[in-house]
């Protein structure tokens, strides 16, 4: 006796959902590992679990009657993940100024302090760049390509390239003035 089509499609739907959630789990874990600082990477499993569990809850709440697209599932997981990261950042004990040089993972305190000074200098220099260039540089430093920057800023690719190069030159000049030079 042939299996009823509806049963087959139900099984297919379950398999699709399982595949999607598994892919989501891997991608969330990878994103946390690649993007977040070490102290958050240590909690990557927890963060992944929380983000995917919320999505699974939502899928279950519909009693299996709605097939969610990958776009929707990823967006929902992302929202939960960022809320959780923000919560953990709020709860994290921020070291007071003198603690900033406390080594972690065997790092040299002096080097850590230098690293912090460089980060602050970059932030300061970036804030001094004119707005249109700053946006382009910021997106570039985030890892976007010129084409993507053009899309995000709604301008031509050539203009995006110019904004990035000029903005980077501004940042470099500012850093050099602060004594941070090759």
């Amino acid at each position, binding site marked *: 006796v042939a299996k009823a089509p509806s049963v087959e499609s139900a099984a297919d739907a379950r398999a699709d959902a399982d595949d999607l959630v598994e892919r989501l789990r891997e991608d969330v874990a990878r994103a946390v590992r690649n993007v977040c600082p070490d102290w958050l990477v240590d909690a990557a499993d927890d963060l992944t679990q929380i983000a995917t569990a919320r999505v699974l809850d939502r899928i279950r709440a519909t009693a299996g009657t709605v097939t969610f697209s990958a*776009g929707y599932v990823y967006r929902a997981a992302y929202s939960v993940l960022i809320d959780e990261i923000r919560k953990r950042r*709020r709860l994290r004990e921020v*070291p007071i100024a003198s603690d900033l040089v406390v080594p972690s993972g065997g790092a040299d305190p002096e080097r850590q302090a230098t690293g912090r000074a460089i*980060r602050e200098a970059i932030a300061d220099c970036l804030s001094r760049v004119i707005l249109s260039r700053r*946006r382009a540089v910021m997106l570039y430093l985030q890892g976007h390509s010129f084409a993507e920057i053009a*899309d995000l800023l709604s301008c031509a690719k050539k203009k995006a390239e110019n904004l990035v190069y000029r903005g980077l030159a501004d940042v470099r000049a500012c850093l050099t003035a602060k004594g941070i030079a090759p």
Partner: protein
Amino acid sequence: VTHEDPSRLARAFRDAGVDARPREDCPDPDRIWAAVRLELPLDERLAIIDHTSTCPVCAEAWRIAMALRQGDAGGRAWWTRRHAGVPEWALAAAAALLLVVGGAFALHLWQRTNDPVIPTPRATAAALKDGKGRVFLNAKGVESLPALPQEDRRRIESALLALRLAASRISTEPGVPGGALMGTGGGERFGVVAPVGTAVESDRPTFRWQPLKGARGYRVFVSEPAAGYREVRESPETQATTWNASEPLARGHTYVWQVVARTRTGEVKAPAPDEPEARFNVLEQERADALAQARERYAGRRLVLGLLYYDAGVIDRAREELEAFVADNPTSPEARSLLEPFQGPARRLP
């Protein structure tokens, strides 16, 4: 230390957020996600980009959104699909032509009617009636007047996205040709009506089914798939075509139900054993309470309520509200498109 190498500069920039804390003005994660995917209008997108340039926490959230777009099929394609095969000058020329033609047409209309132009928040949005309020519904989302609280807005945007992007497959009502939940037996057919393929707010839902000619009585059986289809409720025999669960069902659980008609020649079941199950889920108390509050807060606002119901999985109530919203805006294709996922026969019902 060198800053000539942009990759080092980028690393230093990214490291800036190691101890950073979120700020009061950090945008909702959904908005960052939408900005990365070009789903926000330019002004809002730029506002978020400006924020991320001074907020390492949101810069990190931005990078996570970038990383996740690789795995999301919808997101993976958009960078490359937007201009695929079309030179930028052609896009620019088309846009300019559209502006000129559109502008001329708008001027022509204005000159003909001489009506005052009512400004809308978004030129491309359709202004629609939603109870006493107005909404601007466009391809990207909903803007409401008056503005909604952030949590409700998030849920509404989420539901709208699900309605539009998800390949929703909602069970059809019995009686619809091709409907999946018609019972069979000895040539006689009848079907279950509700709840089917939806979450329910009450923990004592009302079960409804179609009458079967010649039936002497009906009995309802409710079982729980997660517990190996253990039967959790059974009705006494009734001649009515509705039954209320005598005892509350557990909230947060998913159930399957079936009605068995006793006839002169035997029993007829709906849905039949070889048909998709009639499933429903009983909402968690917290979610049911939130919906009750929303009903008071947004009384008469059909779109808002419909999307909040949809987000909670209360599909039948969502459909009722959205149908009423369409009835209030009968000429709007944007409104009608919201009902598309509810149409057509059931194709997937685990």
